[in-house]
């Protein structure tokens, strides 16, 4: 089997509470489509041959790499032999094909490996979901994160990609001028800050909402992955989920159950956690960063890395 994806690296603008348009660099899912934050979700079956064709509409080299996957990056060097990129670059105006065969299910980042201190902050990241063998999107009875015997059966799945934005840095990088010191004032889930996180999915450059809408009794799989530079502490009120996987290694396998319940989960940069809970009684349950200086927009609470689990 083979699955092909095409990505375009582009400039765009996003909107955050209390700011004007914030320039960013992101991946688009079509030649005519807008750059997105995060990039388009890529969903592939385990053991598929995946080809990602990146077209670079930016004015400088970019690349894409797949941390945690069976994929060997090819570091790029300049003509003087100096390291310039973790992975083969796509030249401005050009296209390049990246190939991998995901050998295990889970949730993984894809992100730029070229000047990532700039390009990842600017938005060149997204998520690839690898489905376990036997997964059939049309048959809820087959929905698991990691396959049979991993305790990861679910009814509702939600992906939450965390990050931070320093709007000054974005303005300066977009203008090509030297970068300011990193001091983010905006904290995002799926490219949006609260209260925008609670808005529905949409078109445009910030398509993914983060409101978790479920029915009492449903099994909810939250897949949280940190694309930012800062560790975050994801706090639940009224719900204590069970951690079923870290960095897409299931904690229940071969009869040994190492899963554990945890109310507030520290998620390091580049890490992921799969959390499972049964939706409690109807009501609104807050989910937010217990780094309380990240649950704000600039200096104002509420904001930032916060959303609502709405149980009906």
């Amino acid at each position, binding site marked *: 089997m083979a699955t092909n994806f095409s990505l375009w690296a582009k400039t765009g603008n996003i909107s955050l509470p209390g700011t004007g348009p914030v320039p960013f660099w992101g991946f688009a899912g079509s030649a005519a489509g807008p750059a997105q934050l995060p990039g388009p979700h890529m969903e592939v079956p385990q053991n598929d041959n995946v080809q990602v064709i990146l077209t670079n509409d930016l004015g400088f080299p970019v690349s894409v790499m797949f941390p945690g996957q069976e994929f060997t990056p090819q570091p790029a060097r300049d003509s003087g032999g100096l390291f310039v990129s973790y992975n083969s670059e796509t030249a401005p105006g050009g296209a390049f094909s990246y190939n991998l065969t995901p050998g295990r299910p889970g949730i993984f980042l894809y992100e730029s490996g070229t000047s990532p201190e700039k390009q990842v902050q600017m938005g060149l990241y997204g998520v690839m979901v690898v489905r376990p063998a036997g997964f059939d999107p049309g048959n809820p009875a087959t929905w698991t994160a990691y396959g049979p015997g991993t305790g990861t059966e679910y009814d509702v799945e939600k992906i939450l990609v965390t990050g931070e934005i320093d709007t000054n840095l974005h303005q300066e990088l977009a203008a090509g001028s030297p970068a300011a010191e990193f001091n983010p004032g905006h904290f995002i889930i799926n490219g949006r800050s609260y209260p925008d996180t609670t808005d529905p999915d949409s078109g445009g450059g910030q398509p993914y909402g983060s409101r978790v809408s479920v029915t009492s009794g449903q099994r909810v799989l939250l897949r949280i992955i940190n694309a930012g530079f800062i560790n975050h502490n994801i706090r639940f009120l009224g719900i204590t989920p069970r951690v079923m996987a870290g960095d897409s290694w299931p904690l229940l396998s071969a009869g040994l159950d190492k899963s*554990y319940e945890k109310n507030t989960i520290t998620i390091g940069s580049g890490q992921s956690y799969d959390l499972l809970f049964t939706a409690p009684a109807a009501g609104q349950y807050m989910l937010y960063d217990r780094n309380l200086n990240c649950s704000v927009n600039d200096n104002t609470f509420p904001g930032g890395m916060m959303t609502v689990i709405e149980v009906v």
Partner: protein
Amino acid sequence: MIRNINLWVTDGYISIPDGNSIYIWGYTDAAGKRAQVPGPRIVVNQGDVVNISITNTLPEATSVVFPGQSGVTADTGSGPQPAGPKYDGGGNLVSLTDFADYPGNPGGNPPTITYTFTAHRPGTFIYESGTNPHKQVQMGLYGAIIVRPSDYDPAVPAKKTAYGENTHTEFDREYLVVVSEIDPVLHQAVEQGKDYKIRDFLPRYWTMNGRSAPDTMNSDNAGYMPNQPYGAMIMAEPDEKVLIRYAGGGIENHPLHPHGNHTRIVALDGSLLKNGTEDLSYKKFTVLVGAGQTYDQVFTWSGLGYNPSNPIPTVMPNLRNLGVGDAGWTMWSGSPYLGEKGDVPVGVTSFNQVGEYHFMVHSHEEMQITNWGEFPGGMMTMIAIFPTGTLGDAGTIEGLG
């Protein structure tokens, strides 16, 4: 049982060893008392119905969230309702949960509220403000709740446990250490009514139970720190099981470790690390105490082959491990033999009592073991191993409830 706990939300000052005095907001257990940090310890039993009423005297609304508890209700006078996020008329979130208004707010809510939950499971939990938490938690509105397992019986060793009989969490003594950070500029801004700019957050003090070292090592209820009633010195005798409960009250993660020793983590956020018969507890040297999280550990000191017939507790300690710095004090006895005292370096004062053996517990983010840059200080305390038979038989935490 029904537990009725009354807290007042008010202000006060805490003392820092460098002479600074920091304005705080905090909880206290009686009307008219100044706020304390952390808030009063609440100790209840599994299965108890816990009613926690707060009376707000601050100039803004406040509330309490109970992470790790479920089915929390709130009652502002019209009967209990499921607690949840509160919005203004325009649909803007104003509080993570139902709140007590500031006194005298025209048309506002009452300045009192009662939260109720059933303590479904044992463990160490946090309570903290859910209103302007970026400010109120930093100002000191946080505390810890200990829930005893339903079969808890301190008179029966097998039932003096953190999580119940046969959970491998028996203890002889227990300690609770709530860590946090203080940015004095932000505290001063609140005291003076200036803008509170969390983006400028730059802590200068790091605390264990609201105190910075060396005050961490002073006793509970030390008279000169009336609003920081809890000491953070961990004291035990050889071979005792010591339950250490860490809680992250601040907004940063702190890597804590005891020099030369390892603890066994038995529970996270009040969830026992055990599935069925599978014991998932694990040993760790440096425990990353995440913000808003709790870590229960069991620790037994046995030295390097120490026993009463081989009384040398350890190799000769390195002076840098003893708190001997420019401060000119040490906790070292001067002797490697437990229960004996010897010479300490000239000019150094030893606070050692009966030849007990001290080793440091501190944040390994080393700038955090200073008080505004001056070592030693900050997020540091000692574990003190006392000669067998010298500590007495106390050793459980008392609290409201």
